[in-house]
Each structure stands twice: as C-alpha cells, then as structure tokens.
C-alpha cells in the first residue's frame, strides 16, 4: 500500500514537472567557460556580457515569443573538463552555446558540438585551428591569433625595432599559437629572435629564465600566454635587475597583472580588441553595464554580448530554433552589432576584427600606445 502510494505520488510529481517545463517556453543558451581556475576572471567577462544580452533581449519580449535562459557550465579552462561540459550540454538538450573561453578547451568541445549539431559561438578563443576544422555550426566573435600576432609583430618591427628580441610562451594552444605568429611576422620584417622558449604554466619561479634573458642582453620580450605567469615574470625581472620592454596578447590584459607585478607592469604593451565600450554607438549598453556595477571594458564582454545577440537575431530571422538554420543565416547575412558590422566567412571567422596596441599602467588602466593609426589590422 505504502509503496503504491509513493509510486503514484512520484508519478504525479514527474507529470507536474513536465507540464511546468512545457508551460514556460524557454530557449536555453549554454554559457561555457571557466567559473573556477586561474583565469576565471576572463570567464566572468564572458558571463556578464552574455547575461546582459539575454536580459535585454528578454526585456524586449524574447525571441519569437520565447524567453532566453542562460545556464553556466564550468570548464575551468581545462581541455578534459571542457569535454565533460560539452557532453553535459548535449545531455541537457541545449542547442546553443556561447563559449568556451580558452582555445585549448574550445577545441575539443567544438568537435562534440559540431557532431551533435549544436551552434557554438566563442567570444574569446583566438586559435586559428578551431574554425579551420570547417564545422558549419562553429563561429567566433573575436579575431584570430594569425590576425593578432601580425598586429603585434608589425608594431614591434615598425615602432620598437628591438636589437635583441626574445619570445616566451606557455606551451598552450593559445600562448604558443600567438607567439609563433609574432615570430613569423618579425622574422619576415628582418628581426632576429634570439630566444624562443616555453615555460610551464602554474610554476612560480622564473628567475632562471630571467637571468638567461638578461645575459643574452635581450631588450624586448614578447610573452604568449595569460597574466598569472607574465605577472610573476615581470615581478622577478624587476627583482633581478632586468629591464627590457615586455609585450603580450589580450590574455595578459587584465587588472590582476598590475596587482601581481605592481610597478613592474607599468608600460607593458598589450594587444587587445579595440575598446568597443568607447564607441558612442554603445553608450546605452555601457550605461546598462554601469548601472549593474559591471565593467564593460573587459576584452570579452562585448564579444560575448554579440554572440548572444547574433543567435537571437538568427532565430528571429529564420523563425526557428534549429541550429543549422541559424548557422546558415549567420553565414549569409551581415549584422550590425556592438562590436561593429559582423560578416562571417565560410569557416565561421569574422571578416573584420581589429586588434589595437595599448600601454598598460601600474594602476590597472590602459591607454592607446602612441604611434597613431598604422597599428590596426583586418583579419582575413
């Protein structure tokens, strides 16, 4: 008797649950990126951007009468965990993903999404190989390393002209990729790279490396990787009396680098996506972020906003939530978004995306590097 009671109650509960699910029609968008781990603050940039877009779209009545809902998934920037997350997303029946963040995490996850017909837009992964696989449903709202690397490389060749240059990277897909692109560009311009070396991310002692650079009389160091390691390198360089000019990609452009390196971060050169938050067209959006006490200036905030925006636009235009139809729409149409006019080529890369060189300051702010307009570039 008791078990029958329990079973029928259970059935009732399940039934009620199912009706409540179908009653509130929602389109779930998976937000995949690091919630934990050493680069979690980049994940935050991505999440606040995407959540803002979801909120604003819902405030205007959602998409085709349905509301958007963002669900966060934590990959901790680890390839292994990214695969687990991707499988979880598949099992949850989610068909749209904004993410992942780290290229080495996005790469394996994108294979799974492509196989399962899930539409993925990464607002942060810059490694070229992600879109080179030629998946129909994989896009990005950021430039590629082979666009960013040359911007940095040309800036070095035209304005720095180092006598003795070193390139250091963290042996990860993103860091090594952008470092290699920089090396190729500067070598083409006739600059010799004296040292090209990898380090182990997560280590704390770089004194041996710094002493070596000092001995080689290196006057310029390009670092491909993220800010925790570069922060320590800068700090230890100062301690060991090594005062070369440093430069890094957008993965080091984070106020935390100033906390770690202190004074040593003054004058660091960083290539970042151009500052979309200063575009007058986005004033309204910037005000919305500021009203929520969020910082819209992080390099991945606007790209993440745009990723959701593009998905919504595709769904509205095709009046469907079929990832393939939306992908087809994105491939064929041009949209006006906070990061400018978005037009995709066949592989899912942006036809145009600008990286700009900035000077980083010890108080965590940045200013455009003084050399004028010659530094921006167009992705292929």
């Amino acid at each position, binding site marked *: 008797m008791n078990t029958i009671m329990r079973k029928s109650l259970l059935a009732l509960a399940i039934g009620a649950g199912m009706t409540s699910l179908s009653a509130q029609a929602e389109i779930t968008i998976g937000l995949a990126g690091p919630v934990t781990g*050493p680069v979690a603050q980049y994940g935050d940039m991505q999440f606040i951007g995407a959540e803002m877009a979801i909120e604003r779209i819902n405030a205007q009545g959602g998409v085709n009468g349905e509301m958007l809902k963002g669900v966060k998934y934590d990959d901790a920037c680890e390839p292994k965990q990214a695969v687990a997350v991707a499988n979880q997303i598949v099992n949850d029946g989610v068909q749209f993903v904004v993410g992942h963040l780290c290229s080495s995490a996005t790469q394996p996850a994108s294979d799974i999404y492509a196989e399962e017909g899930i539409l993925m837009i990464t607002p942060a992964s810059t490694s070229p190989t992600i879109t080179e696989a030629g998946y129909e449903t994989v896009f990005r709202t950021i430039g590629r390393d082979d666009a960013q690397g040359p911007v940095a490389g040309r800036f070095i060749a035209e304005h720095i002209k180092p006598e003795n240059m070193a390139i250091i990277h963290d042996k990860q897909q993103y860091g090594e990729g952008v470092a290699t692109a920089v090396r190729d560009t500067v070598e083409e311009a006739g600059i010799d790279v004296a040292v090209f070396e990898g380090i*182990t991310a997560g280590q*704390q*002692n770089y004194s041996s490396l710094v002493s070596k650079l000092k001995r080689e009389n290196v006057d310029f160091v390009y670092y491909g990787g993220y800010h925790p390691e570069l*922060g320590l390198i800068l*700090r230890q360089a100062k301690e*060991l*009396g090594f005062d070369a000019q440093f430069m890094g990609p957008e993965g080091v452009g984070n106020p935390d680098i100033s906390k*770690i390196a202190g004074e040593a971060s003054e004058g660091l050169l960083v290539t970042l996506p151009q500052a979309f938050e200063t575009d007058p067209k986005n004033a309204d959006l910037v005000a919305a972020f500021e009203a929520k006490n969020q910082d819209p200036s992080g390099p991945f905030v606007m790209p993440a906003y745009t990723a959701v925006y593009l998905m919504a636009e595709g769904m509205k235009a095709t009046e469907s939530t079929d990832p393939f139809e939306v992908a087809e729409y994105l491939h064929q149409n041009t949209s006006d978004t906070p990061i400018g006019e978005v037009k995709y080529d066949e592989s899912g890369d942006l036809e145009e995306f600008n990286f700009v060189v900035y000077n980083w300051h010890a108080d965590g702010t940045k200013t455009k590097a003084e050399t004028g307009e010659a530094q921006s570039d167009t992705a292929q």
Partner: protein
Amino acid sequence: MEASLYFLQQVINGLTIGSTYALIAIGYTMVYGIIGMINFAHGEIYMISTYVVFIVIAGLSMLGIDSTAFLIVAALLVAIVVASAHAFAVERVAYRPVRGSKRLIALISAIGMSIFLQNYILLAQGSRDKAIPSLLPGGWQFGGDGFAVNLSYMQVIIFVVTLVSMTVLALFISRSRLGRACRACSQDRGMANLLGINTDLVISMTFVIGAALAAVAGLLLGMYYGVVNPYIGFLAGLKAFTAAVLGGIGSIPGAVLGGLILGVAEALTGAYLSTEYNDVVSFGLLILILLFRPWGILGKPEVEKI
C-alpha cells in the same frame, strides 16, 4: 669572467628554488620516517599557510601597521598556528582511523584530503591570484662587467632560514626527549608503545612540526613571489616529494640536500638548455635515483625484518 658570473647567478637562483623545495620536503620526510606514509596533503598545508600569511599581512597593513618586522613575525606566528591546527586535524580525521590497515588505503585517504583542502580554499578564497607587494625589496649587485649578479635580500633569507630550520630540527630529533621518542617510534612503534611512549602523541607532534615548517615556507615564498592561488600546493608538493625521495626519504639532511640538488639542476637546465626541459630533468633525476639507489642519496637501504 662573464660566463662564471652567469653560472654563479644561476646557482644562486637554483639554491633559492631548492631551499623552498627543501623546507616543504622536510614535512614529507618526517611523516614518512615515523609512520611510513606519504602525506600528500602536505603541499596543501603549505598553500594554506601562504593564504594565512597574505591575510594577516593585508589585514594588519589595513589597520595602519607598517613595521615590516612586526608584520613578518605576526604573519609567521598566525600561519604556524593555523597550519599546525590543520595538520593536526588532518591526521586525526584522515590518517589515524586507517593507520592499522594497508598502505594503499592511507595513501588514498591522503590524496582525498589533498583534494578536499584545495577545494575548500577554492570555495573560501576564490580561484583568482591574490598578490601582496614586496615587503623586503632590493638586494646586492656585483660583477658589472658584461653581466651583473643580483642577490636579493629575500634569496639570502630563504637560504639561511632553510639551513637554520634543518639544523634546529636535526638537533631536536637527536637531543630532545620528544626527538628520542620520535626515533623510537620510527624504529619500532609497537615496542615504543610497550615501553610507555605515547605513540599517538608523537605522531601528532610529527605532523605539527612538519606543518610549522610548511608555514615557514609559506611565509618565505609568499614574500618572495608575492602571489598565491589554490593550486600552488600541488606543484610545490610534487617537487618537494621528489626532493625528499632524491635525498633519501626519512632523512632530514637528505630532504634538504635533495631539494638543493633539484633546485640547482632546474636552474642550470633553464640556463644552458631550455626552461621547457625543467620538469624533464627533475623527474629524470628521480627515475635515475629510483633505478640505481632506491633508498636515495642519504637514506639507508631498508632491511626487511623477518
């Protein structure tokens, strides 16, 4: 001249790295010497101490105290207390209940404890790097012609403190009453118990002493690197464990020697080969030692008792 100055600089760098491995390695080696178990949670105790040091220094600075000496002493004392409390609790909760059973069970319990501690700090403190400014910047510079050798105050302090800690600990083990009890426990715990030594207390004290040294390492490395995150304990623990095995696990001078050798080997690899091969060299050394001298440089070959 330039080449030898460069070599000297790299040896200094190596001795600094090595000293830090050594301080943590002592904790591994003491616990192994007495209960024959590898305490994998030891690296996490070091990580927790570094957090405590940062919190104390940041908190006291906020209250307007800017005497460096006072900050350091206060941070060290609080870190020692908190680290010892953690180590004591870890031993009670995770190791004592499984002490009589197979070695593998204790090992798994230790790994579980390590994961728990890491995630507990992750939840409490977040995953972002926390940083403090250098408390003791500066140092000496000499050489000059072509290449100047830099020796920072912190590097000297780290090296000296390591040697002093090792000496004090070695004297404590060989001279004091509790030290004698430790040695007795390490030789034959059952017999020591029969002779009236409180072996449970001795084992608890071993964990506490190891944790106090980890707290010293947390203070020194926290001040030297200025950065902490919940993951530093894992890599530091792994390297320190390698150092302990290299020097002969169970031997305190061995742990220090192993740490220094490992540190210098890494620095020289970075100097003349490539930083990429650091880990290859350190773990290669470990494999060589395990193949040809499994009891380590200063350890004693284990005689199977019948």
